[in-house]
């Protein structure tokens, strides 16, 4: 199998038809891809981007060994996006962690 013109056109066609939201739902719900929790804070212009996954978790997911499934305890936290939408939360422009409060 090679990425010749026919195959490329076929792949392109799928991505032209599917909407971004549908694709996201398909990938995360049907195929169990994990979403990267990123908080992008916009205050007029781009301010900061904080990756909420620990580097440890990223390493484990990328290089986890193959035969024995690892079980990681995940502590559920309030989704940062919810906070962004909440106009009652005040953001400190000088703080690199805007949701610390």
């Amino acid at each position, binding site marked *: *199998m*090679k*990425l010749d013109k026919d*195959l*490329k056109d*076929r*792949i*392109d066609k*799928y*991505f032209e038809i*599917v909407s*971004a*939201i549908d*694709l*996201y739902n*398909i*990938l*995360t719900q*049907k*195929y*169990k*891809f*994990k*979403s*990267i929790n*990123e908080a*992008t804070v916009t205050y007029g212009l781009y301010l900061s981007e904080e990756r909420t996954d620990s580097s440890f978790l*990223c390493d484990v*997911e990328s*290089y*986890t*060994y*193959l*035969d*024995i499934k690892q079980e990681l305890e995940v502590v559920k936290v309030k989704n940062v996006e919810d906070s962004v939408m909440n106009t009652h939360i005040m953001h400190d422009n000088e703080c690199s962690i805007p949701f610390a409060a």
Partner: protein
Amino acid sequence: MHVFLIFIYMIVKFDGFHGTDNDNVDSILQDGFKISSGDKDWLGDGCYFFVEGINKNPCEQAVQWAILNAWDKINRKNKYVTYAVLHSNITVDDSKFLDLTNADGVEILDYIQKLCREKLATIGKRIHFIDGYLINFARTEKIIDIEVTKGNVYIKLNIEDRIHNLSRRINNCTICSVYLPSNNIGKNIKLVKKGNVEYEIG
């Protein structure tokens, strides 16, 4: 004037070795292989085989895998006492063979990932891309026709690696995943090795 179109299909053939519990042998020989799911770190859903590639002896690797896979770490005992290795001739049309041991195959998977990433970026979303999931996605959504996937991976084939949870980044095995065993293997299955599980990990 008649115009004849001749399509030449290239068939890829290779030997595959599957390690398993000896108790499964009769049902496999009679009914064929069944695919397993959930191997997100390997090559997606399918029936797995060790094949020749970066490893010189895939049969021996299947033996080692079957022996070590017997160990049930939760109950701290072997799930089975006798292992078996089955040999199959795997055949697949080249147009349905995703070979991730070469640049052509990797280019396809990279291209699909790129389009996913670009599309998701339009709504500010990002995901962790995992090989097995991406292959499942491409195959099941019929973005490309895949019947067999081959790739190089690192598999713990010695006790120390498993006890101490050690992994190298340099791959040591070439494996393949067959999604339609009835198409690509059929009944062409032979028992080539059988023995007692020698190790106990405790």
